[in-house]
């Protein structure tokens, strides 16, 4: 497997314009960075007001983050200030992360001001990694979010190069060791103690750390030191929390003019699905879940997920499944990019249709199940499966219609069970001769039923391993009776609790026999 190519980008800490400008937010400071007076964000810390961040103009005048606000205002009287809102920043960063999905499906938020994108297999759409990085940074700067970026094999190396390396560095595969050697030690994301101690030992560059004995360094600075070094060089893995799972099965179509008509939306969905299905077919694979995302001009994205019961790659069928779901897409001023991701990709053998094709039952049912699931939702189509439980309402589980056979023991056909089971048993009033006898008559929903025959009792106890210790007791035991009234109707009633206890046992109706 080829090494993962990662791209890191960082918003330089000195220009804290809010990234939410890209999404129609009414921030008054959009796009006027250069001619604005110096601007800083204030935060209240331990009773004093301090500067949380400053922009380039303020930094040029000698202000820095952490200074007291009173001092800063004295130094630069025309300083414009606003309150630091970390929640809004976080939300804006997450929106930006979602916007970046148009470049690669695997985007992760990194810290407070960065994003990590895994661009494995997606750079060919821009004609190369350098072109992709340039395009991304240019779009971001157009939105008023100045950014720095870099591409490398590992997330750690990309992070380091984006923040401390030269502008728009693209490191060739396997070249991160050499590229990192000139960067300062702070580029390795070490903890503060190590960060403070290393310069005192005369270790200023990452290249100086390569030759050091690992065991002693781990003992001195902790295991995280060696782990970070390995992560940057690619010797150890790093887990990233992507907004969506990473998938190299990604296709993208961009349009010269934004589209908004529904027929056009359906047509471009068919086109992009055809692209990805052709790729899947070339590799002999099929996928179970596809997600078509429409990206609007102002950055908002609308996702239309499509699921198949069996992995497939039939673009026509997928387009037919997408077409009815297009009403969630609000084109606004127009859609300019459409992307599709495929998940749950598996190998799919080429099936050859026989002339006297006797359809395999599951294959014939798959299109119907797909249509129903996509139209009604997954929770509304199921196959009842046995669950190993005595309690009647828990003895039936739901599973996907085309899933494999259930592993639990099948239901016992000798136990009499009703055709209709009420979700909530209804209370009835019962008259019986002796406590343990089946009842003679009962009243349900205001109607009297006189019984002519009864069968039972079938004792179903409580599943004591499920509830609290205090909840268990003879009060939860059910004695089921199958009774027939004079008109022929058959009911499944039960008595909860035993006679002779403190509380009088209650009778309930649980089901109706056909």
């Amino acid at each position, binding site marked *: 497997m080829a090494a993962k190519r990662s791209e890191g980008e960082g918003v330089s800490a000195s220009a804290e314009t809010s990234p939410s400008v890209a999404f129609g937010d009414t921030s008054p400071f959009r796009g006027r960075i250069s001619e604005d007076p110096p601007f800083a964000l204030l935060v209240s810390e331990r009773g004093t007001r301090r500067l949380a961040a400053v922009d380039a103009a303020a930094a040029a005048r000698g202000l820095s983050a952490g200074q007291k606000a009173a001092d800063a205002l004295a130094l630069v009287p025309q300083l414009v200030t606003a309150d630091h809102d970390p929640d809004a920043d976080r939300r804006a960063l997450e929106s930006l992360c979602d916007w970046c999905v148009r470049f690669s499906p695997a985007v992760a938020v990194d810290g407070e001001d960065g994003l990590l994108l895994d661009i494995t297999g997606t750079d060919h759409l821009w004609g190369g990694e350098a072109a992709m990085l340039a395009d991304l940074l240019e779009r971001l700067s157009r939105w008023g979010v100045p950014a720095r970026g870099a591409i490398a094999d590992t997330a750690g190396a990309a992070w380091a190069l984006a923040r401390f390396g030269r502008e728009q560095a693209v490191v060739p595969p396997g070249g991160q060791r050499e590229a990192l050697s000139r960067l300062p030690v702070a580029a390795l994301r070490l903890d503060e103690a190590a960060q403070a101690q290393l310069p005192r030992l005369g270790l200023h560059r990452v290249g100086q750390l390569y030759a050091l004995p690992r065991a002693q360094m781990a003992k001195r600075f902790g295991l995280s030191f060696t782990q970070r070094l390995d992560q940057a060089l690619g010797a150890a893995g790093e887990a990233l929390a992507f907004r969506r799972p990473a998938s190299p099965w990604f296709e993208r179509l961009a349009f010269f003019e934004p589209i908004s008509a529904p027929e056009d939306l359906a047509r471009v969905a068919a086109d992009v699905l055809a692209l990805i299905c052709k790729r899947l077919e070339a590799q002999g694979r099929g996928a179970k879940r596809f997600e078509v995302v429409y990206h609007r001009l102002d950055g908002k994205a609308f996702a239309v997920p499509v699921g198949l019961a069996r992995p497939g790659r039939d673009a026509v069928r997928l387009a037919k499944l997408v077409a009815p779901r297009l009403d969630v897409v609000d084109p606004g001023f127009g859609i300019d990019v459409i992307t599709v991701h495929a998940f749950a990709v598996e190998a799919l053998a080429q099936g050859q249709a026989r002339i006297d094709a006797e359809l395999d039952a599951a294959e014939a049912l798959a299109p119907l*199940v797909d249509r129903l699931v996509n139209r009604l939702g997954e929770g*509304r189509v*199921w196959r009842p499966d046995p669950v190993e439980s005595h309690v009647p309402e828990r003895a*039936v589980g739901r599973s996907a219609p085309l899933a494999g056979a259930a592993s639990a023991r099948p239901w016992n056909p000798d136990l009499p069970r009703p055709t*209709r089971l009420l979700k909530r048993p209804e209370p009835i009033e019962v008259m019986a001769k002796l406590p343990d006898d089946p009842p003679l008559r009962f009243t349900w929903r205001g109607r009297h039923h006189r019984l002519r*025959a009864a*069968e039972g009792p079938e004792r179903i106890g409580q599943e004591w391993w499920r509830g609290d210790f205090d909840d268990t007791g003879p009060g939860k035991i059910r004695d089921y009776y199958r009774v027939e009234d004079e008109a022929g109707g058959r009911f499944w009633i039960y008595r909860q609790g035993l006679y002779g206890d403190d509380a009088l046992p209650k009778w309930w109706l649980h089901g*109706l026999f056909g």
Partner: protein
Amino acid sequence: MPGSREARIEALRGRIAAIEAGTRTPTPVLPFGDPRIDSHLPGGGLPRAGWHEVVGEGLEGESGAATAAFAALLARPRAAKGAVVWVLRRSDLYAPGLVNLGFPVERLVVVRVRDEAEGLSVMEDALATPGVSVAIGEAEAPDLVAGRRLQLACERAGGFGVVLHRRPYGGPARGATGSAAFSRWRVGRAPGRAPPDGLGLGPAAWRVALERCRGGRPGAWILEHSEADHGPHPFRVVSELADHDLAQTPPERLRRAG
């Protein structure tokens, strides 16, 4: 002579049937196995492709227990292979109960819909799919247009459909409208006979009335659930009812089928 007159009438009937059928092959039918029922149905049984209605009275209109059991048993011979789709609005169908009736639950697909139009459309979709052999739907009252579409879907793919009339959440009943079904059955429970060893309950029994049938005659019977083979259907006629018997409680003497 009466004998030759009978023979001539039979011959004439055969010729009329041949003329009516023309060049069409006779549709295969699934008989009940008992001439008392089969004589009411055209061709001696239920046709393979077509849909039928099952109506319940009183509480059955809301709970739909006896109608569900009857529909399951009616469709059981056709469900021997292929998938079965059950469309319902209220998910109180209990699978172990269907297992007691011998219904193939491992090939059952249950679909829960939100309203009647959606239910009928899902049923039509299911009947038009080649892999589905039986589709059972719960609806209040399919109108003529919807019924015609169901019939076309059945004929296209050879599926067997049953529509149970049910108002799952109560409410006032709408009057009976015209129907495009092949047959309409009105089902209610009947007291069963005592079991052979006298303990417990015997086999289930239903009071079944064939209200209308395309090309057949109405009739009424008391049917009992029986697994011995009297025919492909698991029913055994306990007694045949005349029209005026429907209003009363069932007759005192239940005689065995001859």
